[in-house]
């Protein structure tokens, strides 16, 4: 008898523990942790995350409530009727979660997620601003095509401190290419297409406020497409471990008003003309 009462105390403590874990988890996720979204497709990414939170939260809470109820009901040493395995019921109780969870999650991927995914990987619009970003240990080399609108030739053997992009003087199109370090200027409200390149190890170009993340893979030309929706300065972070200086491989995207962007661009001179 004494043992039973002791277990009742423990069962109550366990139920309180699982209740606390549930409240902590659900309450924590309900908070808006993400930095304010500043890109067009980012709204869609947030939409998918919130859909999943709202769809899975009740599942988690329901499971927790049943779990705690079972602990309370069958945890205090009171005799209950012996259970008899019932294959039919067990089969049904498999079909319900399979259908339920797959419907819930495939809606997230296909119905909610795919349109946003298509936005991220859409064909590059004709009016997009094209910027090339090269990740290298431990900085971002940013190149604009310059007034001629064409990226000039680059060669890896030409890369050095004075020529971080490895621009080839022999190519006329390279002469006016603008090269800056660790800062990307883009106009507000216009599609921005970033050609992502790498030449040493993997990096990842990530701007939390834009919900943008794309690996830099040497030998592969990767792409980022976004439309910035709020002016300001947004931090670029490298999110793929790349060595000792990984943590300080940051930069910034400046979202300017279209006129300010044009002014900035016009004040730049070609790297090789400096």
């Amino acid at each position, binding site marked *: 008898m004494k043992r039973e009462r002791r277990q009742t105390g423990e069962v109550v403590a366990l139920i309180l523990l*699982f209740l606390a874990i549930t409240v902590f988890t659900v309450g924590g996720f309900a908070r808006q*942790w993400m930095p304010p979204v500043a890109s067009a497709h980012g709204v869609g990414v947030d939409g998918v995350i919130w859909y999943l939170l709202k769809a899975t939260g009740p599942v988690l809470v329901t499971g927790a409530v049943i779990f705690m109820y079972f602990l309370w009901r069958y945890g205090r040493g009171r005799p209950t009727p012996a259970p008899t395995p019932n294959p039919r019921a067990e089969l049904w109780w498999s079909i319900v979660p399979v259908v339920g969870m797959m419907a819930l999650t*495939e809606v997230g991927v296909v119905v909610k997620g795919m349109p946003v995914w298509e936005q991220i990987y859409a064909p590059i619009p004709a009016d997009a601003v094209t910027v090339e970003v090269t990740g290298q240990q431990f900085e971002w080399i940013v190149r604009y095509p310059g007034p001629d609108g064409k990226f000039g030739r680059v060669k890896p053997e030409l890369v050095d401190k004075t020529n971080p992009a490895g621009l080839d003087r022999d190519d006329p199109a390279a002469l006016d290419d603008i090269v800056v370090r660790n800062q990307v200027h883009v106009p507000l409200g216009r599609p921005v297409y970033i050609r992502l390149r790498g030449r040493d190890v993997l990096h990842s170009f990530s701007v939390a406020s834009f919900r943008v993340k794309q690996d830099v893979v040497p030998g592969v030309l990767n792409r980022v497409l976004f439309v910035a929706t709020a002016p300001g300065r947004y931090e670029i972070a490298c999110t793929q471990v790349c060595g000792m200086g990984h943590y300080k491989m940051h930069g910034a995207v400046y979202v300017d008003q279209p006129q300010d962007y044009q002014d900035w661009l016009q004040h730049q001179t070609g790297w090789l003309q400096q």
Partner: protein
Amino acid sequence: MSATAEHAQPGFWRHYVFSTDHKMIGKQYILTAVVMALFATTWSVLLRLHLAWPQAQWPLLGKLFPGLFQDGVLLPERYLSLVTMHGTVMIFFVISISLVSGFGNFVIPLQIGARDMAYPFLNMLSYWTIVPACLIMLASFFAPEGAAGSGWTAYPPLSALPDAAPGSGLGQTLWLFAMALFIASFTMGGLNFVTTILNLRTRGMSMFRMPLTVWTMFIASILGILAFPALTAAAIMLLLDRLGSTSFFLPSGLVMGGTVLPHQGGTPLLFQHLFWFLGHPEVYVLVLPAIGIAFDVVAAHGRRPVFGYRTSVWALVVVAVLSMIVWGHHMFVSGMSPYVGEYFSIATVSITGPFAVLALNLVASLWRAEIRLTSAMMFALAIVAAVGIGGVGGIFLATATSDQYLHNSYFVVGHFHLMIAVVTFFAIFAGIYHWFPKMFGRRMNETLGKAHFWLTVPTTIAGFVTMHFLGMAGEQRHLYDPSAYKFLEPVQWLNVLISILLFIPGAAQFLFLWNFFHSMVAGERVGPNPWQATTLEWTTESPAPHLNWGAELPVAYRGPYDYRLNGAPDGYEPQAAAPSAAALVTS
């Protein structure tokens, strides 16, 4: 003439060191894992100290670990080495070898009614391959430029180019050699498990009478055998890229230290495919046995048959099959084709179906139970909570569109810690509290066990759940100094909170270790079946003798979980009890 008498007890060396007895080898694996866990936990404490207070100086730690600290501050390259080694050692040299190799070895022959593994010598060889692997892995800290620092995934080119990072020199080479030995050992173990389960089941032990622990070990072993060769290939190719100037993973145009490297024609993405072709199934190699142990413990200490034994088996099979074709969800932002990405996304979230069956069957196994709140049972219950939260987190990462934001963030770190650290460690604890009597003939102290539970479970779950919030705020993993980013300033307090939450269970494990080793010599002695459990291992003496049973092997007359089916409140029908005798066995 009994079997035990025919085979005399082996001498000290053959019994304790070069043993071919599956029980001793299982214990050896678990003890090796304990030692490795002490290292890997210490490293994580250093990491968490630095992440919570990146500017603080720790002169004492600087004296204790002179190679890692400078002026009392952890060095960035050493930070990456510690992260890499913590991950590698925990996944392969702690959880894999304790949960799978350790419990698998100890439990499988006992639960299927076999005298030993199918290949006892191979079994010994498998353990003695792990030992040098552990030593080489640890020794890599003493490489001139330090241990590997390219993460447990060892993505090239970082891991392929010795000049790319301090840890990419000899440290990375030793890392690869140690991993190659680990894979060799784990493959030998897996082959042994599968062969043993297929061939050495006792009379009456049909596949659908096997306890779920055996089922999960069986499925995990098949997964390991199928998936590890991809990593073997990748590791050999990476070694050749490093030492033999091949270019499997290295494209042309690489610039390192101002010079263009002669490599051409390879791609780093190939390594990622090969790595995750192993890496994702490996997750299930760890999680499935944890779930199997949870089922066995919940049944024995909940005094009722597992709810949905057959549906659970089929759900395990489906999870295993799916786990082989979803590896690409680790590569959504790698530059892989977006069409392929959508395929991997659709396939991955479909795992929630069978996985939900497993979670629901675990919860439903409490329905009409007679719960006995032992330490083993409490940890098994905590597994259910961790599986629930961890499983839900996985959906966010499996959905390609939300992974666009959450990839490589602390959300990922929190998620995989919940699934392959919390769930698996809780299963290891549940398994040890449950099978300790069979291992050593004594019981662990229940009061200490419960103190261990209360110090471990709330803090661990809260700590790793909080990591999800940090990831939602955008903090990236492998980040040496969060204060390098302005947008992370408002959430730095989460790092402090996580560290404090996780230091508590870190310290509490010493309580567990004390209980473990003290109970080995001074625990309360128990008989063959202290839990009144049904499965075959409880029909032999505690500790189980050499060759497990006397002259006669037990016969399985029924399924593994016939608890309370004979009407008596505490009654149970052991698998080995002949039908006529069954009615007599009540507690």
